[in-house]
């Protein structure tokens, strides 16, 4: 899922400094799971902003709403009436949600409350780690199910580099060397010979570098 983290409250406050009334929109999708933009976080952010502004002698009015998902147009339709009466919308969704709201309500000031960071999963309670770089051409079958694109700091496809030592990456003792993990797994699977094949350069045209991507499922399209 998408992992996001709330921006510092002073940064969010600065984006809506000249507003009197704002709508805060949470999202019940990924950001609820990573505890950064669900209903609870939306209420907490709203009240923090109000308190902050009251202390500044410039009170702020807030309205809150949590959409089932902000990355689907049908769920933000419901905002129509709420958006009308506010000076700005603060979206607590990932970057997609912010863009969808800005696109739908194009004359409204829409700001992000979160830094959308990566696609990952939780490794311990309260800890999330990046696992996939959305490269559009998955090669996990060649690397023992461990992604070198995102988990190797240099995205090396023929690793490990010379900085790998004691199982850790050269960038930090807290970061596992992805290629050590790949080596260990392939060894355990009796497939080390696979690592001797020279992996060709990656086709990044299927990744972000090829421009915005689209996925189409004609079978479920209407009309």
């Amino acid at each position, binding site marked *: 899922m998408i992992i996001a983290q709330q921006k510092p409250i002073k940064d969010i406050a600065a984006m809506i400094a000249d507003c009197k009334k704002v709508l805060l929109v949470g999202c019940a999708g990924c950001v609820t799971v990573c505890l950064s933009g669900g209903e609870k976080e939306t209420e907490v952010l709203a009240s923090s902003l109000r308190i902050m502004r009251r202390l500044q002698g410039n009170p702020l009015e807030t309205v809150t709403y949590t959409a089932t998902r902000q990355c689907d147009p049908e769920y933000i339709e419901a905002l129509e009436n709420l958006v009308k009466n506010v000076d700005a919308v603060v979206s607590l969704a990932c970057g997609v949600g912010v863009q969808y709201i800005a696109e739908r309500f194009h004359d409204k000031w829409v700001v992000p409350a979160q830094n959308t960071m990566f696609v990952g999963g939780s490794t311990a309670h309260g800890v999330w780690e990046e696992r996939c770089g959305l490269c559009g051409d998955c090669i996990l079958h060649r690397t023992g199910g461990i992604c070198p694109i995102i988990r190797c*700091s240099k995205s090396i496809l023929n690793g*490990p580099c010379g900085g*790998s030592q004691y199982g850790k990456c050269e960038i930090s003792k807290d970061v596992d060397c992805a290629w050590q993990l790949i080596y260990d797994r392939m060894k355990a699977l009796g497939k080390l010979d696979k690592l001797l094949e*020279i992996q060709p350069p*990656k086709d990044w045209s299927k990744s972000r570098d090829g421009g915005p991507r689209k996925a189409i499922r004609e079978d479920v399209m209407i009309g």
Partner: protein
Amino acid sequence: MKTESKLQKLLDSGHFAVTAEIGPPKHASAHGIRHHAHMLKDYVDATNITDCQTAIVRLSSIASAVHILDCGLEPIVQMTCRDRNRIAIQSDLLGAYSLGVRNLLCLSGDHQKFGNEPSAKNVYDIDSIQLIYLMRRMRDEKLFFSGEPIKEHEPRFFIGAVANPFADPFEFRVARLEKKVEAGAEFIQTQCIFDMERFERFMEMVRERGIHERVHILAGVTPLKSWRAAKYLQTSVSGMIVPDDIVERLKKAEDPKREGIEICIEQIKHIRNIPGVHGVHIMAIAWEEVVPEIVERSGLFPRPKVE
């Protein structure tokens, strides 16, 4: 495949090669590079020009190489995968060749985290093994990375790579070296060797697989200035092993710099006797002026002449 590289001629004719390293400056003057080139010219067969080593912005390796050529010394241009995508790499290397550069060393490059631009966006479009492979194909099959033919004047570099016997997983290091040779590397320079025992074991594995017959291996050495420098490499640089006795020896020395030079000379003498090693690569980081003495006292002077 023969190139116009003097280093290749020397290695192919069985000479024990000596290369050194020159780090370009963090400014826009070539004065220092030229000074070092003149100093090293008769003592080494070629010099590496680092490519923004440890991700610190420095005078470009290709521009430096041209200054070095101008001083009558043969450069080995380092090309990292960190800063350029495949378009920039090919363009820069065509340019380097047009300027007279004949040796290329392919490496992934230190992560930008260590440099003076830690917030830079890195590239790593291709990795070092892919770079070796693509350059070899560019030369031998006259194809751009994309597969498009190079109609004329393909760059004919003598292609090198690096190997680190001190990184992990150790058992895979020789296999990865072989992979680099398989991709097309013709010479290899190793990471600085302090742990001789481990290097000997590495070379044993290299010989077992016959890799030393398919590639020229140049063993890396570094003269240390002080026990603090040794300790720093031991504890703060990933992929290095510095045995305690080297730290101790420098600590006890009356003149640590002299001792550093002595240790380096001993290491070279030792390395010369390891079967399968075809040369040394002296990385006297910011201490280039000691290279002539080291070469001379290791019995590697004068350098052989080749056509």
